[in-house]
């Protein structure tokens, strides 16, 4: 009889869990999976880490490739969390061997060369429905609110992160959960530096940091929270 009780009990609790997960799925609630970036200052601002099933927007400000490096860093953390590859599209001039320095192994990168914006958006959406991926990244010039909402919804349902990498700050409002801007900054010694600012973060707070690369470990560390603190070399665990 005890066996019977156990059998009848478990589906109920399973259903309850499923319901909880379903309710939590609307917006970055408690059930949302967060991926730690390994940079305490940034994780704190994000409210515990980057939400996995969400849309994130990264804009380059000065036309440099700094935003590409930062996107690679975020993708690297997402890959590490789920051990699945990422889809980078179109990624026509991405140089795979260079990504490893930012924590993204080229073995985990898939490319699909979609040139037309409409096709690119469709491809991203299909990628978000594919359970074999950790994240998708689209290099896109402009996106409207509706299209970004579609991506956000698909990311939420699939539990897969969607990153948009743009060459300039966006003019339209988008449904992105976090919005980043990245600048190049002058290197300190042999360590390249970037200025990263989190302009918008649902369920977190904004911030402005100076990051620097670590030549020895290939990791990234926070050099300073801009304006107030002295440089601290806190290297992110790889």
């Amino acid at each position: 009889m005890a066996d019977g009780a156990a059998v009848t009990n478990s589906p109920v609790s399973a259903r309850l869990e499923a319901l909880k997960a379903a309710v939590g799925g609307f917006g970055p609630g408690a059930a949302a999976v967060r991926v730690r970036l390994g940079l305490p200052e940034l994780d704190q601002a994000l409210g515990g880490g980057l939400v996995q099933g969400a849309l994130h927007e990264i804009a380059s400000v000065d036309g440099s490739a700094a935003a590409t490096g930062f996107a690679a860093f975020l993708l690297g953390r997402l890959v590490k969390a789920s051990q699945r590859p990422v889809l980078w599209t179109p990624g026509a001039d991405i140089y795979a061997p260079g990504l490893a320095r930012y924590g993204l192994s080229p073995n985990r990168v898939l490319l699909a060369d979609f040139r037309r914006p409409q096709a690119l958006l469709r491809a991203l959406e299909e990628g978000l429905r594919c359970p074999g991926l950790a994240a998708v990244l689209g290099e896109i010039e402009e996106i409207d609110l509706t299209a970004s909402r579609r991506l956000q919804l698909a990311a939420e349902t699939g539990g897969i992160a969607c990153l948009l990498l743009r060459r300039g700050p966006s003019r339209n409002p988008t449904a992105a959960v976090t919005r980043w801007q990245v600048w190049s900054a002058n290197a300190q010694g042999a360590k390249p530096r970037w200025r990263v600012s989190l302009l918008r973060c649902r369920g977190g707070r904004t911030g402005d940091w100076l990051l620097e690369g670590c030549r020895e470990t290939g990791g990234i560390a926070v050099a300073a929270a801009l304006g107030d603190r002295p440089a601290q070399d806190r290297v992110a665990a790889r």
Partner: protein
Amino acid sequence: MKRVVSLWLPHWATDRLKIASRRAEGLAVHREVRLGKVRLNEPRLAWASEEARPLVTVAAANGRALLAAIDENASAAGLLPGMVLADARALVPDLAVRPSHPDKDAAALAQLADWCARFSPWVAVDGADGLFLDITGCAHLFGGEARMIEDLAQRLRRFGYRVRLAIADTPGAAWAAARFATLARGSDSIILPSGGTREAIAGLPVAALRLSQVQAAELERLGLKTIAELYPLPRAALLRRFGLEPARRLDQALGRIDEPINPRTPASPHEARLAFAEPIVEAASIAAALDRMLAGLCGHLASEQLGVRQLRLVLFRVDGSLQHVSIGTSRPNRDPHALRRLFAKLFDRLDPGFGIEAMSLTATQAEPLEDLQLVLAQARAQSQKRARAENRAAVETPLLPAAAESAEPLDETAIERAVDEAALAALADLFANGRFANEPAPVRLTRPAPQESHLPERAVAPVPALAGKAERWTAIALSTVRPVRLLPRPEPLETDETESETLPTSFRWRARPHRIRLAEGPERIAPEWWRPAASGASVSDTRDYYRVEDSEGRRFWLYREQTVSRWYLHGLFA
């Protein structure tokens, strides 16, 4: 017992011309009506009289124009193929003459053969004006042989072709009956009873044995007019007197030696067909029919432990033309939902015309599908229904009985990896099949793989994402400092001095000035002398690479060509 249809189109070439001109005329009338030039009920006298004129096609031979094909009216007026055109004109003054195009006739006949595949997958072209259909085991699908052959004849008549058909046990007997048998009044077809071939063709002339004119004439000269008169002859005498051909043809007609029918497209054993009582037009109906066929085909494949690599969908339109699309998968697959999604992208390319009366779905390439994937296909179907949070549990559930039986339980991570790979394969198939969201060309899902080269632009090459054997990146290969973006081709820089040996203090790139603050280098990369130089001469020169940072912190990868001392920008660092 084998059953074969012989289809003869006695006026094939001329019927084809008439149908084409009628279609063109119809289009012209349609256009004129639309433009308001004519009213629809205005009689088209020219067309009607054109229909009644005897029509012949003409081919040049030995400097003379000979009749190649003649239509019904010309035949009734006493003309024969092979006549000299001048003689024919003398007999029939208002003869309509067209040039003969045997190649176009053959192409159209091949198309008609493809259309006939809706009745049987085994269709072969027979000569210039006939077809063979092997309908063994097919007839019951169309309500029996009589209904099937009447259906076929009626459809062809409706297209505008004169036809004669016969069903018999052998191609030879069917051929003979279609061309020489006396048909019942008002009928275009005859069915020779199964097993009664010998009696049924006995009364036909010897020419019905597919003999050349010379041989038939020779037999007739000796008084052997009908096939029945050949039966009592000793075989040795027949061979000695007339050679191999008449005896062989007789054996073929009677089924003593086998005569296989070679279908135009190789028939696949994995096929699903659907015929509709009423032609369908709407995309939704086509999709529903496709779902039914996919379910049937996948069930059949499952019983044989096979998966599809290539699928071909053929739509048979009421006007006798075909529409077809094909999809390919990167690995064997028999998941109806996944296959359905691949077809969905191609639907807007299909034109149902005036309606589709039948569809066929053929697995043109099938491969064994491994057991692990078989289990995973079920697991995936279940996991789709459940929340992703329960994904792991869903994978395990269908495995439980199998795991209990087998000695060693399946490795869970291996299963997860296989599930991921299957999902990626589905994504790659989706991108690669047809035009994805109007992208002009199919897009491949690739992986940047390392290559045996130290030239930056040759060190990486895209390989298919799921090619398991491709090289992987090693820590050593990744230890050199490389940019995150590499320009498709190096861009020449404007520097202070166009040809400077030393690193310039500033440069212009894409119309923007950059002042160099920091520089590191050089890293010397020699050309690959064992390779012929590419069209761009730059490959053939040694390069000195520098990593530089401008005053605002942007980082670039520059190089100088050693011999000409020109500066280029090749990549961007983050």
